[in-house]
């Protein structure tokens, strides 16, 4: 945040928070001071470990969150594919997904900043739940905005948030889903910006969010590097992660890309490792492309098929019409169902450091069943996309797949969708048919 150009073309603006041409701070003026204050706090507490903030974060994510999560060899999948498959087990993190790494980091930071209140948006409820958990643990009042439609179809996560004593504010506008919730949360933040911190749920939004969320999530790849050294004796050939907003992706990639900057990382874990392929698996949905006339994309493959634009505070790759209207994305997995993606990921794709790929809904559902059946791990539908990509992977391994979360939350959806699609991979549920 130090130098702020008054130059007149974007090319010359080299402020913090830019990843190549992506990133930035496209937010209403009312939020700019908050965003600047946060960027300042990020530099001091996170980057410079002021007051031992990062030590505190690391201790808490270990003791409260259950880090390090294991790197498990998938014996049956390794046999299936003929190369070694290792699973990074974020499904075992407290709350059941990688989301807590970020939520705990941000709520703790808000505490260090003297904020007295937390707001967050949530779609499927995973980020809301993680935030509510972190707030209960750190004794911070918490309000979660959630579209009315999502409230009704994600009841268990609403229960969890309420049980953690978070307020859940249903948003009745529009389609009542994630984007309306983001809107409302922004609005709350804009109204209460002085005492309130907005905990964004992925590596999106204005600077410093993309960098900060990446840093909190980078514990994933830090551990993968250490664990690879122990278990594989070498670095993996590739790291595979699903990409929605991209937080588990950046978390799994950062140490290999050399882009994270969380103090206290073990020696050498952040040296760039250009030989390790980084594969971001997007939701291919039912097919690629955008239906311009309907304003609808039957996928959420913004890295693979999107174009550059500005959304939710940052310049990044988006699913949009030619005119620039954001289209409705689609994925069987609620957590990947977002029309944008983190700006750093967009940049790493342009640079050729990260390869964007995608798998469709059916492939993800099949992978969900495959991992559950073959390895005794029920993955989140989001993570199932990463697992599905193994079917197409052409290298010799070893490959590390980030299992970003567990799939308990997805059981109903998976059963319904598997039945509707008549998937062979799905077990019959006739035990209920009496």
């Amino acid at each position, binding site marked *: 945040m130090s130098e702020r150009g008054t130059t007149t073309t974007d090319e010359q603006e080299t402020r913090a928070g830019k990843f190549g041409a992506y990133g930035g701070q496209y937010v209403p003026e009312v939020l700019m001071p908050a965003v600047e204050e946060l960027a300042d706090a990020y530099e001091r507490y996170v980057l410079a470990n002021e007051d031992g903030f990062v030590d505190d974060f690391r201790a808490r994510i270990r003791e409260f969150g259950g880090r390090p999560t294991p790197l498990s060899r998938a014996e049956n999948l390794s046999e299936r594919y003929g190369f070694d498959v290792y699973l990074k087990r974020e499904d075992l993190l407290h709350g059941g997904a990688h989301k807590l790494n970020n939520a705990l980091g941000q709520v703790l930071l808000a505490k260090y900043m003297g904020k007295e209140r937390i707001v967050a948006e949530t779609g499927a409820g995973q980020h809301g739940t993680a935030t509510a958990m972190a707030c209960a643990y750190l004794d911070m009042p918490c309000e979660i905005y959630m579209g009315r439609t999502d409230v009704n179809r994600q009841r268990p996560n609403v229960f969890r948030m309420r049980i953690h004593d978070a307020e859940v504010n249903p948003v009745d*506008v529009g389609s009542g889903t994630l984007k309306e919730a983001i809107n409302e949360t922004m*609005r709350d933040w804009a109204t209460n910006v002085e005492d309130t911190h907005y905990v964004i749920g992925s590596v999106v939004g204005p600077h410093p969010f993309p960098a900060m969320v990446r840093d909190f999530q980078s514990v994933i790849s830090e551990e993968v590097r250490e664990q690879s050294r122990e278990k594989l004796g070498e670095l993996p050939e590739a790291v595979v992660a699903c990409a929605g907003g991209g937080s588990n992706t950046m978390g799994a990639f950062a140490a290999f890309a050399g882009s994270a900057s969380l103090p206290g990382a073990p020696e050498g874990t952040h040296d760039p490792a250009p030989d390790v392929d980084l594969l971001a698996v997007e939701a291919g949905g039912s097919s690629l492309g955008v239906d311009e006339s309907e304003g609808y994309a039957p996928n959420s493959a913004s890295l693979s098929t999107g174009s550059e*634009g500005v959304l939710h505070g940052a310049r990044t790759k988006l699913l949009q019409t030619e005119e*620039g209207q*954001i289209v409705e994305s689609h994925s069987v997995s609620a957590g990947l169902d977002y029309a944008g993606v983190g700006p750093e990921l967009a940049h790493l794709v*342009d*640079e050729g450091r990260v390869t964007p790929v995608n798998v469709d809904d059916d492939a993800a559902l099949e992978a969900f069943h495959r991992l559950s059946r073959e390895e005794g791990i029920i993955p989140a539908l989001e993570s199932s996309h990463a697992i599905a990509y193994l079917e197409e992977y052409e290298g010799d391994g070893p490959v590390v797949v980030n299992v970003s979360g567990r799939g308990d939350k997805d059981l109903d959806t998976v059963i319904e969708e598997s039945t509707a699609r008549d998937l062979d991979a799905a077990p019959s549920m006739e035990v209920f048919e009496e």
Partner: protein
Amino acid sequence: MTRSEIRAAFEDGPALVSYVAAGDPSVEASKEYVEALVDGGSDVIELGLPFSEPVAEGTTIQNAIKRALNAGMTPDAYLDLVRDLDVDVPVVCMTYYNLIYQYGESEARSASENASGDEPRASGGPEEFVAAAAEAGISGFVVPDLPVDESGPMYEACREHGLDLIFIVAPTTTPERLERMLDRTTGFVYVQGRLGTTAPATRSARTRPRPSNACRTPTSRRPSASASRRASRPARSSPAARTASSSGARTSTSSPRAWRTTCPRRTSPTASNRSPRS
């Protein structure tokens, strides 16, 4: 169609700035509303170009925008509407940056080109839309998600085409930021009277907002003009404006309470006589 400069609208003291979401419920209706508002005394029209993600708007305008999009509003249809307007007050385009940025040769920004590793935005940018808007008769822009810090290219394009780029001064704006804004301000600046987004004043901030402390702080340059984005009552409400606001079932949801008006409560607005920094 002739139209005075924005700054002229503030020359005689407080001005009434009215907002209409273009295309809600139809292009024809918007044209009628705008004309009625001007007949009723509006000094400046802020004509919203609907964007699918209106992060700075409250429920009322969100819903208006949604209706407009469903009715088929597009940037080209918007410019056509502007060309068609028969009013003699300045029309300010209020929209979000992505629509401005994407306008024009869209193929040039396709995914395959981006994947080549070129600096992607080389092919996009605000120039084309600003040029087209100037040609259609727009006098200036309000782009809520384009803070001064990101406004370089937009500022350049506006300067080139003689349009005003209007910034918003928030209650939270620091003197240092205000300084930066005034460097790029033409036309007028909004002074946002309250924390939050556009909305009826039913939900108020949990903390008492610092009222525009940036503007109250003595600076070397005075703000060129100030307007509350959301006074709960219009400063001046002519019978005709009231007629416009109740001219149809759907119009009433673009509730008058959400209309932006000048609000001379704190600083008396004056037209800016500062020209764009050369």
